[in-house]
């Protein structure tokens, strides 16, 4: 089988690619480092774009189709950039029983976005998590990296209201 691999030089001279390169080096550029490498790319750049996928495919000598397959199979990887602020609502069983549907409805009413979507101005991304493991604090959400528990729809809307509009 003959597969053509693309260029193994980073897509740009952004210094952050060195972090990605370091991960691949640590794993000896073996194909099985794919998931670890994608984690590093997402941690560094926030999401996986096409040029990143092409670069990783070439550097690890994994077919691009397989890289794309892995990137889309796992829910943790984002192929689109996130908004300025993120709200991850936990949809685990305990949170669901304690009123997550009401939280999601409130967000949709206020900001017009469902989980997985970003507001048109790129200000807020709303996501859902399978379970944050903070079931003792249900219902919980992660607002810009901070876990907030025992939420009511009003609490949540008020906290998200502080994020204002995207003026950047």
């Amino acid at each position, binding site marked *: 089988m003959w597969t053509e691999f693309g260029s193994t030089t980073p897509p740009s001279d952004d210094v952050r690619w060195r972090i990605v390169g370091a991960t691949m080096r640590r794993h000896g550029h073996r194909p099985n*480092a794919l998931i670890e490498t994608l984690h590093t790319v997402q941690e560094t750049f926030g999401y996986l774009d096409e040029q990143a996928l092409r670069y990783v495919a070439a550097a690890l000598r994994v077919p691009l189709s397989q890289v794309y397959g892995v990137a889309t199979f796992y829910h943790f990887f984002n192929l689109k950039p996130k908004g300025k602020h993120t709200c991850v609502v936990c949809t685990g*069983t305990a949170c669901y029983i304690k009123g997550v549907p009401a939280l999601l409805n409130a967000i949709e009413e206020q900001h017009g976005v469902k989980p997985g979507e970003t507001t048109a101005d790129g200000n807020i991304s709303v996501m859902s998590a399978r379970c944050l493991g*903070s079931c003792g604090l249900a219902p919980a959400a992660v607002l810009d990296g901070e876990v907030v528990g025992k939420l009511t729809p009003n609490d949540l809307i008020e906290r998200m209201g502080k994020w204002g509009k995207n003026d950047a």
Partner: protein
Amino acid sequence: MTPEEIAKVITTEQEARLKYKHHVCVCVAAGCLSSHSDQVKAALEAEVKNQGREQDVHVRGVGCMGLCAAGPLVTTKPETLYQEVKAEDAADIIASLDSDPVKRLEGPASDPFFTRQVKIVLENCGVIDPERIEDYIAAGGYGALQNALTEMTPAEVIEEVYKSGLRGRGGAGYPTGLKWSTVSKASGTQKYVICNADEGDPGAFMDRSVLESDPHRVLEGMAIAAYAVGASQGYVYVRAEYPLAIQRLQNAIKQARRLHFLGNDICGTTFSFNIDVRLGAGAFVCGEETALIASVEGRRGNPRPRPPYPAESGLWDCPTLINNVETLASIAPIIRKGGEWYASIGTEKSRGTKVFALAGRVKNTGLIEVPMGMTLRDIVFSIGGGIPDGKRFKAVQTGGPSGGCIPEEFLDMPVDYESLNKLGSIMGSGGMIVMDETSCMVDVASYFMEFCMSESCGKCVPCRVGTAQMHDLLTKITQGRACLEDLELLEELCDLVRNTSLCGLGQSAPNPILSTLKYFKDEYLAHIDGKTCPAGVCSIHKPVEVEA
């Protein structure tokens, strides 16, 4: 490390501890951290300086104390537990150390929640500092590994685990000793040990708490397992959604390597074993062992048919032992105190203890460990403190999306693998969600089916298509658009998906439907015939009469 060196660490630690008159322990596991226990800890430390007590008061961060709902938790003496502590309370807590405790903050330290638990896996949780290996050693840690390597043959280790009657805590309940013995007998020079920490069940956080509160216990269990089966490399496959657990685990691995509990020539013997961390990426199916292996190899998490079982051909086609976090966390105490001691706890077929994540509509939500065979009623009403807000108990859900709902009439059943199976549920990894009358059981079944539908990997047709069809039918029922034939079709599909799916995900996906249909059929019928939702959860649109 030699036994003498270990003993030296223990004495140094004990001396260091005796220097202080008071030890103030603050929970720094994720539950309490998200209610800002880090700020509480900082405030307490500042207050110790402020009141000039640096000489006799020591503030420490410890792992999960269990009662997550009342966090942040702080203890000052074994009998004094403070709940919902805020940074502003620090001054009062430090000032009261030599007198009576602060009344307004006192938590239920003598509540059945604490007194009725039997802690083996969680024995160090809430007691030791998870970020210091010396704390773990002082609590007897790595003694079992030392003992196994120097005093026991691999066969004797396996025999001890076999005698303990320990069964896989990931949910399936396969005898651990048997699994170890299969891997040890498998031919091949390279073998692997994998710790499954891909805790995907929504509503379960046992593994996360153990990794965050006592990571060394898992590493010690893995090293003992590796010695027993003859493996030289191990992986911990942990969810990327648990950043704190990953950080503490990596820290623990570094410390264990430094003291030669991992790496080459462990404990002065010729045994070598390394552990690496692999991150999951949010796929529930990767909890299935063959899918997990694919994911560790860097591929999509698609399961494959078994046999061959991973014990014979697993990671990179080498014999691989896969055990869950809680299983591995039970190993060190078994080696330390003997298999017979462990087997004396629990019921005849389910030995030992089980950790549950108690959550949902129950007063004391949090992490508990109870002996096998305790009744559900004791767990929910005695330890859990019953249902809040004067509501009525309806069901308890065990086993996550693969489990079922158990109604009130079976509350006196003992909790063990067999009884739960008989009721149409499973032990699962230990998520236990309590539901009251405000939950609609059809809606709950639909919630789980939505979960299975979107988590299905898509490899086999019954699971990929079947879960989607079942979800459609449940949606139809919850919207009041279904007829009785739909219910028949649903039951038929349950049977088909259960019997023809490739892996455990599909085979157990119908369980939430089957168990709710068995015990709460009246609720299904109310949606279909009466077009009403008895719990008032589902929004049913009444059909509009159209004039001819």
